[in-house]
């Protein structure tokens, strides 16, 4: 911040930043608060501290099953959409493709279409093809949504590195596959990790597509949605929300550590 200004006399921007952060933090901070509250009603005044909702969370099989479903779908979606994103990113950054803008625009469409419309379109297609709804159909829909994100993350990583490294490997006699594996892949790895994390997060939190495209197996957001109608179930859901938040914190910390490692490898290899 501005060095020649004492902290007790902040400038307008700093004041604004604090107000803004309060606005985005305040509502979500009340949720973990109620997960420790000794009352099943999400209302003031608070009744006292308890860990019973965390206990209940662990002892609710439906909730854990929904969590596992979301993790399964999320992992599969992360891997597939990152692979699709990687192929597309490599194609548009390495080759001069006619109609590059149109192709990229087409892949980006899921980002600029209201989720509900994508969901019902897929629902209609899937029902016309007589494909039963399941976690697979949810996964497919999530993959469509996540591929553009994966592509954007990977493009920004691939544009950053020197093409000569690949050419040098090819000149020195590596074939295309080994060049990819031994040169391209290690350099793009931080981008791949970022893409895996981002796409997993998107799939893990996605509600609308899953709502329309699953049958009896709920994903976590669907479980949360159905719990919001039953006041007695809400505290355990809030406990779960708080737990996921803490876990994400460690994942992001790990990712940041990994990214810094990636940056360091870059600087030692000369750029």
């Amino acid at each position, binding site marked *: *911040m*501005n060095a020649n200004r004492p902290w007790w006399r902040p400038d307008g*921007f*700093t004041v*604004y*930043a604090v107000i*803004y*952060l309060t*606005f*985005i*933090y305040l*509502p*979500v901070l*009340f*949720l973990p608060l109620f997960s420790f509250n000794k009352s099943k*009603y999400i*209302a*003031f*005044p608070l009744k006292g501290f308890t860990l019973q909702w965390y206990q209940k969370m662990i002892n609710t099989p439906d909730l854990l099953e929904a969590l596992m479903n979301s993790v399964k779908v999320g992992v599969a979606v992360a891997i597939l959409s990152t692979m*699709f994103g990687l192929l*597309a990113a490599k*194609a*548009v950054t*390495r*080759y001069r*493709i*006619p109609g590059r803008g149109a*192709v990229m625009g*087409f*892949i980006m*469409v899921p*980002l*600029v279409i*209201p*989720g*509900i*419309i994508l969901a*019902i*379109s897929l629902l*209609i*297609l899937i029902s016309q093809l007589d494909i039963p709804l399941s976690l697979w159909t949810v996964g497919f*829909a999530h*993959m*469509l949504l996540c*591929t553009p994100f994966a592509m954007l993350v990977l493009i920004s990583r691939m544009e950053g590195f020197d093409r000569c490294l690949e050419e040098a490997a090819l000149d020195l006699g590596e074939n295309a596959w080994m060049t990819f594996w031994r040169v391209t892949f290690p350099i793009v790895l931080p981008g791949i990790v970022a893409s895996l994390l981002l796409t997993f997060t998107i799939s893990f*939190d996605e*509600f609308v597509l899953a709502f*329309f495209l699953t049958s009896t197996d709920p994903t976590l*957001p669907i479980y*949360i*949605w159905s719990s*919001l109608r039953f006041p007695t179930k*809400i505290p355990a*859901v809030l406990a779960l*929300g708080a737990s*996921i*938040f803490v876990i*994400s*914190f460690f994942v*992001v910390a790990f990712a940041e550590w990994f990214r810094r490692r990636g940056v360091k490898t870059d600087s030692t290899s000369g750029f």
Partner: protein
Amino acid sequence: MSRSATSSKTVGLAIRRRFLASEALRGFSLLSPTLLAMVFGLAMPLLVLFTLSFWLQDYVDFIKTFSWKNYSDFFAKPIYGMILIKSIKISGMVTLATVLLAYPMAYFIAFRIKANKLVWLILITVPFWTSYLLRVFAWKVMLGYNGVVNSGLKSIGLISEPLEFLLYNPTAVTLTLAHAWAAFAILPIYVSLEKIDRSLLEAARDLGENAFMTFVRVTLPLSMPGVIAASLLVFIPTVGDYVTPSLVGGPSGIMIGNIIQSMFGKAFNWPLGAAISVMVMLTVTAMVCVFLWGTHRFRRRVA
């Protein structure tokens, strides 16, 4: 015989050479798995949606003959058009609010923070690690009958009875959406501000512009791509949102997403739902085009 064999071999070789030589072909073959998946998962469903919008529902089956009935229904019953317009108004307000609120924050991080920008960016995104549904629910906790605002006002003695008008109306929907989508506005604007060449700002100052005019004539036009991206990323998905209106909107806060959802649920009229979806897409596309044209003119006039 042998001659034709050699010629086909040379043709094969020529094709192979063309393939290796042509960047476009190699690029497209690398793209093909992704493109194929997107065609199957995106182009086909949208085509089917469009087709279905001209069919009719007959109990559990569809009448598969071409008909304009769904569209004439859409225009005959003013409720659909009204709710669509209301959804656009709400999303427009949400977009305006998120972008206006996010811009100074993005500017602050891009220009005032010298070290640890990443910490600030993470600080911005941390609230969004909470599930979207729970973030929307959080506003029920904030604005509800025994919620944070009511309890707070009561405890400081400003009110004696909880205020009931806070929740279940379009304003609650707008506020909740503006909160839920804040990160989508701030990040693109930050990226475009960060990209601005600082020497351009110095040049403007050296040439005698004051700080405000430098902002209006240099910083703002150069950050417009971020503002445009942020507006589209917030506006388009929120038009179709039905989670927020169902949780905090109440009867007066219903949006077009709720109508579409009911057509595929309780009301069970898929073709009419498809027709409404097509109308939503057409309207949104038209509005986006007008918006892009407007911002384009703005940039040309200022810059």
